[in-house]
C-alpha cells in the first residue's frame, strides 16, 4: 500500500456511507444515528431552553404548578406480540417517560393512524388493550395502602383517562397496520426531580428487573428470523416503582431512565455524557433471563442494546443503594432488581464493562440497529 498521504482537516470522504439525502432505518434505532438526525435536522430549526434539555418529558411551569408533558409515537411490528401489543405499549411507553421525571401520570391523549385494510378485530383488540393498560396504570394511591395482589398495577379507580384523541386512515401499504401517538401529562413534585446530569461519582447504578425481554419477544416474530422463545415483552407502567423510591429515599435518587430502544447501553451512555461522568458495569451482575441470553447468542446480539419496556434504571446515592434495591423488590415489577454498576469520575462520558472473564471493554453507543450476524 502507498505511504499514507497528508490529511488536511475536514477531508471529505469519497465514499460516504452515511446517506445525506434520505432517512434510513438506523435513524430510528435510538443510537448515534438517531442523535445525529435530531441534532442536524430537528434542533437546526427547533430550539428553546426546555427542548435543549432532551429529557424524557418536558417540565412546564404554569403559574405556580409544574407539569410534565411527554409525547411518543409507536411503530412496532408485529402489532401484537407475546406480552403485549401496540396499544398497551403506547400507554406504558408514554407514562414511563413521565414517571422517569418523577411525574405522577394524570391524563393521556391518543392519536391513531390506521392502514386501509386493517382488520377491525385487530383494532378492537388493540384499543381494548390500550384502555386496559390506561385503566390499570399503576397510580398506586395513598401511602399506607395495603400492598397489591401481584398484578402490575395497583389500580386506582379510573387509572389514567384518555381525554382526547384523533384518527386518520391512510391507503393500503402506507403504514404497518397502525401507528399510535400518545401524549401524557403528569404532575411534578418539586421536591423530587431526578435528572440525567445529576449522576455523581460514587452513585450506584440499579436496574429494576430482567434485561432484554421486549426486544427479543418482538424480534422472534420477525420474518426471516422466526424462532420460538419463551419470552414475553415486559411492557408495564413503572410509576408504582418510582413512587416507592420517591417515598423511601427522596432526592437520593439522582437519575431515572427507562432503557427503551437502544437498551441499557444507550441509556447509560446518554446519562454519562449528560452528567460528564464515567460508568462502570459488572457483567456478572446483569440480570438477564436465560432465554434472552440464548436468543442473543443465536443472533449475535448484545443484551445491553436490546429494548426494554418495563424496567427502569435508577442511579442513587451509594449509601441508600441497598435500600433502593429492597424497595424495588417489594413490588412485583421490581422483584429482580439489582445493582449493576457504579458511577465513576474517570473516563468521562464512557460506559465500561467488566466482563465475565475479568477483562474490560467499552460499551459504546451503537450507530444504528443491531444486525443479526453470521460472523
Amino acid at each position, binding site marked *: 500500500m502507498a505511504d499514507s498521504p497528508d490529511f488536511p482537516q475536514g477531508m471529505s470522504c469519497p465514499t460516504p456511507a452515511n446517506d445525506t439525502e434520505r432517512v434510513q432505518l438506523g435513524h430510528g434505532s435510538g443510537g448515534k444515528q438517531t442523535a445525529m438526525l435530531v441534532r442536524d435536522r430537528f434542533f437546526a430549526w427547533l430550539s428553546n431552553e426546555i427542548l435543549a434539555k432532551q429529557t424524557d418529558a418536558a417540565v412546564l411551569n404554569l403559574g405556580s404548578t409544574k407539569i410534565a408533558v411527554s409525547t411518543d409515537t409507536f411503530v412496532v411490528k408485529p402489532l401484537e406480540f407475546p406480552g403485549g401489543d401496540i396499544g398497551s405499549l403506547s400507554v406504558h411507553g408514554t407514562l414511563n417517560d413521565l414517571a422517569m421525571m418523577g411525574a405522577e401520570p394524570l391524563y393521556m391523549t391518543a392519536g391513531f393512524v390506521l392502514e386501509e385494510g386493517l382488520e377491525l378485530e385487530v383494532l378492537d383488540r388493540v384499543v381494548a388493550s390500550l384502555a386496559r393498560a390506561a385503566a390499570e396504570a399503576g397510580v398506586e394511591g395513598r401511602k399506607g395502602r395495603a400492598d397489591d395482589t401481584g398484578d402490575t398495577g395497583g389500580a386506582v379507580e379510573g387509572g389514567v383517562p384518555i381525554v382526547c384523541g384523533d384518527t386518520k386512515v391512510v391507503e393500503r401499504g402506507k403504514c404497518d397496520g397502525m401507528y399510535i401517538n400518545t401524549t401524557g401529562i403528569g404532575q411534578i413534585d418539586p421536591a423530587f426531580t431526578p435528572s440525567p446530569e445529576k449522576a455523581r461519582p460514587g452513585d450506584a447504578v440499579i436496574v429494576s428487573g430482567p434485561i432484554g425481554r421486549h426486544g427479543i419477544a418482538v424480534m422472534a416474530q420477525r420474518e426471516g428470523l422466526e424462532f420460538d422463545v419463551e419470552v*414475553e415483552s415486559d411492557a408495564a407502567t413503572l410509576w408504582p416503582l418510582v413512587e416507592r423510591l420517591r417515598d423511601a429515599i427522596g432526592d437520593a435518587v439522582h437519575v431515572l431512565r427507562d432503557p427503551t430502544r437502544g437498551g441499557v447501553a444507550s441509556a447509560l451512555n446518554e446519562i454519562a455524557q449528560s452528567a460528564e461522568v464515567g460508568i462502570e458495569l459488572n457483567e456478572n451482575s*446483569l440480570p438477564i433471563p436465560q432465554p434472552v441470553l*440464548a*436468543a442473543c447468542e443465536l443472533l449475535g446480539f448484545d443484551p445491553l442494546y436490546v429494548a426494554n419496556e418495563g424496567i427502569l434504571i435508577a442511579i442513587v446515592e451509594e449509601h441508600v443503594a441497598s435500600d433502593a434495591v429492597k424497595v424495588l423488590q417489594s413490588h412485583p415489577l421490581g422483584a429482580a432488581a439489582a445493582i449493576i454498576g457504579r458511577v465513576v469520575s474517570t473516563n468521562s462520558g464512557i460506559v465500561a464493562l467488566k466482563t465475565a472473564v475479568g477483562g474490560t471493554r467499552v460499551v459504546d453507543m451503537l450507530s444504528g440497529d443491531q444486525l443479526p450476524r*453470521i460472523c
Partner: protein
Amino acid sequence: MCLGIPGRVVEIAGDASMLMGTVDFGGVRRETCLAYVADEVSVGNYVIVHAGFAISILNEEEARQSFELLREMGQLSGEEWMQNLANDSLGQNREVTE
C-alpha cells in the same frame, strides 16, 4: 464467519430429501437443517449450528475430558463444575426465573 452455537436436538422431521429438526438453544428453539449430520444425529444430541445448519455433533466425551483438564488448571471445585453442568445456568450470572 463462524457464529455457531451449541444446541440440543429435540425433534427430527422425517423428510429424507433434506433432514430437518428442531434444536433447543438454552430455551430458544429454531428449525434447523440436519442434513450434514444426518448419518449419526439423534434426539438428545448437541449440535453446533451455523446459519440454520448443524455442522457437527458435539463430542460430549471430548468436551468433558478437555474441560477436566481446564478445570484442574483452574482449580474449580468438583462440586461447582457438576453444579454448572446440572443447572444449565450461566456461570456466575444471577439466574432469573420468569
